[in-house]
């Protein structure tokens, strides 16, 4: 029997009115990679916050034993001293400081308060090499991509003599290539350095790949712990534990009724607003038909978001050339309002930063893009607004106390439903969705897919941008592949597969 490095016993955590954790037990074996899965709001992050001392000893019930010792952490510093390091989903790096400075942030290599730069740089170089980061230690963190920033975080953790490394959704914002690199690195430091890892992730394929043990949490309770050696740890099996039932199909079935072309973009070229000599999009042409769900696949940074935003009333880009044709007529929306008037809608990639007014309530968010419809002579008819919002709340099954609830307090899936309501309310003909299910749990994803399909069945043209290939393959009727600002492939549903899409991308790189 292997030794447990960590035992959390009967952990109960109460928030006013909510039991976030209910007598959760977690045992982590030394030297293993342990995965924590569960739907959003199941209590994974809360459990890790209890462990790392963000919620101090005494604010929860139960006991934590680390390396056989009872832990009474009052803050995150104390848990770090014991060798427990947590890397959050939102990276804690300072953008204008160099990689080396970031690695030793809060742990400066100094004597008597004066920083020893030689030691800092030397140690940083060694760590950079260890994590496989191909950057100079002097590069400011803002100049490297998210994937590399994630590596800096790991280097930072390693610099602290870590024994238990906790990663909260480390690959959520990464493309497949960066994700692979990160996962391989985790396996490497796990094997070579004997560092125990706890990884929280929604990406079940990754978990089945790297984890030895998987603990499933649902509604604040620990449901089961699966061991690779003893149990079946297929994705279907994990999902069953997460949602409490067999989810036969992750994508709802649909028989598409596809009509004539409704929207067309020809020879679309856009330059980078930061550097006007750089082409961001190069001669892109595509079309979408009535009732069709069109997918745009591609790696992160391939220009998909830029394409959507430049189409959507020139919200991105400089020196835009090319033409747009909608229902046989040439259109040229010069700002977002005009784009909305032409019947375009764009659901942003990042709903918190660019989709919602988080401090405002559901009803105000839903009507924001189409206040015209509910107002007379610039005066908003609040009763009409409430009726409309209530309709969407029911129709899209937005789980909330009422339409007066702040959107900042909703779960990711319900926030996304509010954003969708907002854009459906503008009555668009062409709806562009950018990463519509990012950070949303399995159950809510299914609901979002159903909504998207319903809109297509109502005769709207849908464009889905997604980094998750299974999602593209699961719901789209036709797929374009983008790479480095160009369309590098187009395929029908019947021909599309992960291999074909990757092949298009790889071929274009030569």
């Amino acid at each position: 029997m292997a030794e447990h490095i960590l035992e959390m016993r009967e952990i109960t955590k109460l928030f006013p009115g909510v039991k976030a954790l209910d007598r959760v037990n977690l045992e982590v074996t030394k030297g293993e990679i342990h995965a924590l899965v569960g739907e959003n709001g199941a209590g994974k992050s809360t459990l890790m916050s209890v462990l790392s001392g963000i919620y101090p000893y005494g604010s929860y019930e139960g006991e934590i034993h680390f390396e056989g010792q009872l832990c009474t952490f009052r803050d995150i510093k104390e848990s770090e001293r014991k060798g427990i390091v947590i890397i959050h989903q939102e990276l804690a790096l300072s953008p204008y400081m160099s990689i080396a400075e970031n690695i030793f942030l809060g742990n400066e290599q100094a004597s008597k308060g004066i920083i020893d730069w030689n030691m800092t740089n030397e140690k940083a170089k060694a760590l950079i090499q260890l994590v496989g980061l191909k950057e100079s230690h002097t590069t400011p963190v803002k100049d490297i991509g998210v994937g590399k920033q994630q590596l800096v975080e790991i280097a930072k953790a390693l610099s602290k003599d870590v024994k238990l490394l906790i990663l909260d959704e480390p690959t959520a914002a990464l493309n497949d290539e960066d994700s692979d690199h990160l996962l391989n690195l985790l396996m490497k430091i796990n094997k070579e350095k004997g560092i125990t890892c706890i990884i929280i992730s929604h990406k079940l394929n990754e978990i089945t790949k790297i984890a030895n043990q998987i603990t499933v949490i649902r509604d604040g309770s620990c449901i089961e712990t699966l061991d690779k050696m003893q149990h079946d740890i297929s994705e279907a099996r994990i999902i069953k534990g997460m949602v409490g039932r067999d989810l036969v199909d992750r994508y709802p079935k649909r028989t598409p009724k596809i009509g004539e072309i409704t929207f067309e973009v020809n020879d679309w070229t856009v330059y980078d607003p930061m550097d006007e000599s750089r082409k961001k999009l190069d001669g892109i042409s595509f079309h979408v038909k009535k009732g069709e769900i069109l997918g745009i696949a591609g790696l992160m940074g391939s220009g998909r978001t830029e394409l959507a935003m430049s189409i959507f009333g020139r919200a991105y880009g400089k020196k835009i050339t090319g033409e747009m044709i909608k229902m046989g007529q040439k259109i040229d929306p010069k700002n977002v309002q005009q784009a909305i008037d032409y019947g375009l809608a764009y659901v942003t990639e990042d709903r918190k930063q660019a989709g919602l007014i988080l401090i405002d309530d559901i009803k105000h968010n839903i009507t924001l893009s189409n206040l015209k419809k509910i107002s007379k002579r610039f005066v908003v008819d609040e009763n009409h607004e409430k009726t409309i919002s209530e309709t969407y709340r029911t129709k899209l099954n937005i789980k909330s106390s009422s339409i007066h609830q702040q959107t900042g307090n909703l779960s990711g899936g319900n926030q996304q439903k509010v954003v969708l309501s907002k854009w459906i309310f503008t009555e668009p003909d062409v709806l562009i969705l950018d990463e519509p299910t990012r950070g949303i749990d399995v159950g809510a994803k299914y609901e979002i897919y159903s909504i998207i399909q319903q809109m297509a069945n109502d005769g709207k043209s849908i464009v889905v941008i997604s980094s998750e290939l299974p999602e593209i393959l699961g719901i789209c009727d036709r797929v374009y592949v983008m790479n480095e600002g160009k369309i590098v492939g187009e395929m029908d549903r019947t021909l599309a597969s992960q291999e074909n899409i990757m092949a298009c991308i790889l071929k274009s790189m030569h």
Partner: protein
Amino acid sequence: MERLKTGFKNNMKQYAMLIALVFIMIMFQILTNGILLKPINVSRLIYQNSYVLILAIGMLLCILTGGNIDLSVGSIVAFVSALSALFSVTFGLPVWLSIILGLLSGLLAGMWQGFWIAYVKIPPFIVTLAGMLLFRGINNIILNGKTVLLPELYTKISSGVVPDVIGDGSGIHVTTVVIGVLSVMVYLFLSHRSRKEKIKFGFEVETKGAYIAKQFVLSFVVILFAYWLSLANGLPIILVILGALIIFYSFLTQKTVVGRHIYAMGGNRKAAELSGIKTKKILFGVYANMGLLAAVAGIVFAGRLNSASPTAGDGFELDAIAACFIGGASATGGIGTVMGAIIGGFIMGILNNGMSIMGISVFWQQIVKGLVLLLAVAFDVYSKSKAKTAS
């Protein structure tokens, strides 16, 4: 019950400030041996604070767009009062014309700053800091550093009362009471209509008992207030102007599309832009509006002193900003109300007035005001962080 609780929570900040206002009023009423709420002092409070309250309304709109403040309003007050002297005294124009020209100049000053902020994207702090120096300088050039007396008509606006057309001059200003009763009737009619409409749509409304109690208390307070004023000199003209501005800007922020856009922009500028809101136009608009309201305040202030002076409006910007924050506006934008800013302004005003009556030195007054501002915002931050952990 749950609904009542959340409803109460949502309005807690606003009620908290109202409760604080009442508490401060009672405290000073006792400390000043009843002088604070004497009719003549109540009307003095209105005269003294009117211009800061007018500025606070404009400032609130700026703050709502994203915590943007305007440091130049004190200087624009001075600038406009100097122009009033220039137009009406030096050029000898009729007063009504020089008032219109004064308002236009304020609007232009606001547009000038709005241009730099919205279209050249210079931070408002910098632009209005420059404006603070710039407009103060222009004031000094116009006045040549001297104080200039203004025609008497200016004084009418800021210190006059509505003529008592009904009364017989027996000491009670009857017109004031009649106006008070009339406005209560209009208010009761409008709120009754909106309640009926809500019931028709099947929305939740407060219980009949609570509704009647609320209406009764409000009507009582307004009529008592009108009666109180009638015991002094009557209804100040400036209160009519202020009331009209409060109603107009409350309506603008709460009920109109533009108002929604202002709040949305302050809540999340990027999301607002991607929802089709023209944030630059709004930013330009609120600063132009601030200039206009600063001009109104400038004319009122000039009238109150009956002169234009080089130091007019000194430090007003800070009083207006403080009023907004005490009244519950968020320092990052998107949260705050016109009524809140007015209540915040009155809290500051009563602190000033009460302490002056008590003979506390100006230096101590500043210390108290500073601490009140700090505590009010600390309370705001505290209640917000508590709400966050609860969710």
